[in-house]
């Protein structure tokens, strides 16, 4: 897999060099696109990664995990959103944490909110998003999506609990 990728990249550069030598237009255009896109990325990436690094150092995950499952009612929902912030990794990490939440006694609505929020407002991802699409875009997306997700998760959780639903939580 790794070596295949390396070969693809080597082939790509041979293609670029050959295009430059023979004046093959699409090839030259590709090279131009490469430089342009590389520049776009290069001027954003260092800042994004430094911010992510600072975030990881100053907001340790362990202290946050201690608060898992604390509070019920509206407090539980707020915690679910706050806890989602420092997470890394997508659903693969959120789901095992959801199981932990459940075992600590959190309601289904809170768990669903947590799953939704962990995909919406993970701060390392937000830093990345805002770097490439702009802070207004990220802010707008959060302000719209978080209430939507919270309210509908609470609703769905409420309906399920009324029916006495028992999730598997087998992970």
């Amino acid at each position, binding site marked *: 897999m*790794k070596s295949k*990728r390396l070969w*693809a*990249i080597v082939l*790509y550069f041979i293609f670029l060099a050959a295009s430059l030598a023979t004046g093959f237009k699409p090839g030259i255009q*590709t*090279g131009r*696109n*490469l430089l342009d*896109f*590389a520049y*776009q*990325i*290069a*001027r*954003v*990436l*260092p*800042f*994004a*990664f*430094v*911010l*992510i*690094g*600072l975030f990881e*150092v*100053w907001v340790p995950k362990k202290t946050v995990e201690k608060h898992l499952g604390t509070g019920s009612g509206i407090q539980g929902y707020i915690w679910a959103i706050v806890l989602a912030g420092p997470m890394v990794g*997508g*659903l693969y990490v959120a*789901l095992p944490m*959801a199981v932990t939440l459940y075992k600590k006694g959190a309601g289904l609505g809170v768990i*669903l909110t947590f*799953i*939704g929020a962990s*995909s*919406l407002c993970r701060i390392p*991802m937000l830093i*990345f*998003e*805002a*770097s*490439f*699409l*702009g*802070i207004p*875009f990220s802010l*707008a*997306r959060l302000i*719209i*999506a978080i209430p*939507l*997700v919270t309210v*509908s998760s609470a609703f*769905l959780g409420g309906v399920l609990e009324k029916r006495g*639903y028992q*999730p*598997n*939580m*087998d992970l």
Partner: protein
Amino acid sequence: MIIFVSYYTLLYKGGGNVRMLAMLTGVCLFFSLVVDLSRTIQALRIALRRFTKLLGEFALLLVLVSLALTFVSPQRITEYMQGPGKLIGALIAAVVGSLTYVPGFIAYPLAGVLHQQGVPYFVLAAFVTTLMMVGVVTFPIEQRVLGAKVALVRNLLYFFLALLTSLAIGIIFKEIP
């Protein structure tokens, strides 16, 4: 710090977005340095390690995007993204976002370049939101946690919410009349 400042001035010509990001990073870095030097160094190490880990992915992204942009011209993208085609575009973006599993570190640079090519914000919002919230690939694990039926309902519900979010973003950024 010196490296940072020189990097910043080198790329100062970047748009307001880059400038905001650079200033935010600068302020955070400054305070971190003042409060705790060793922690700051640790943070920079994390940043470097993360970056080098993802370097291969970025290289591949650069190669693929530069090729794709040659054969699909920006004009064609903008043509597609006008009139009623925009809404269909958002729907397609939402479906693609649900079906695929792309790490954010790849998806966001891609979304950034698509925006520069004229793809509206709300189409990108549909893509990135479903990408994060709806998972066909992660469904097998999810059903082990929530049960198949509830996992299905959750994914459908969040798909719908992502579409709503996308529409709202379209209205906010005046992309949908």
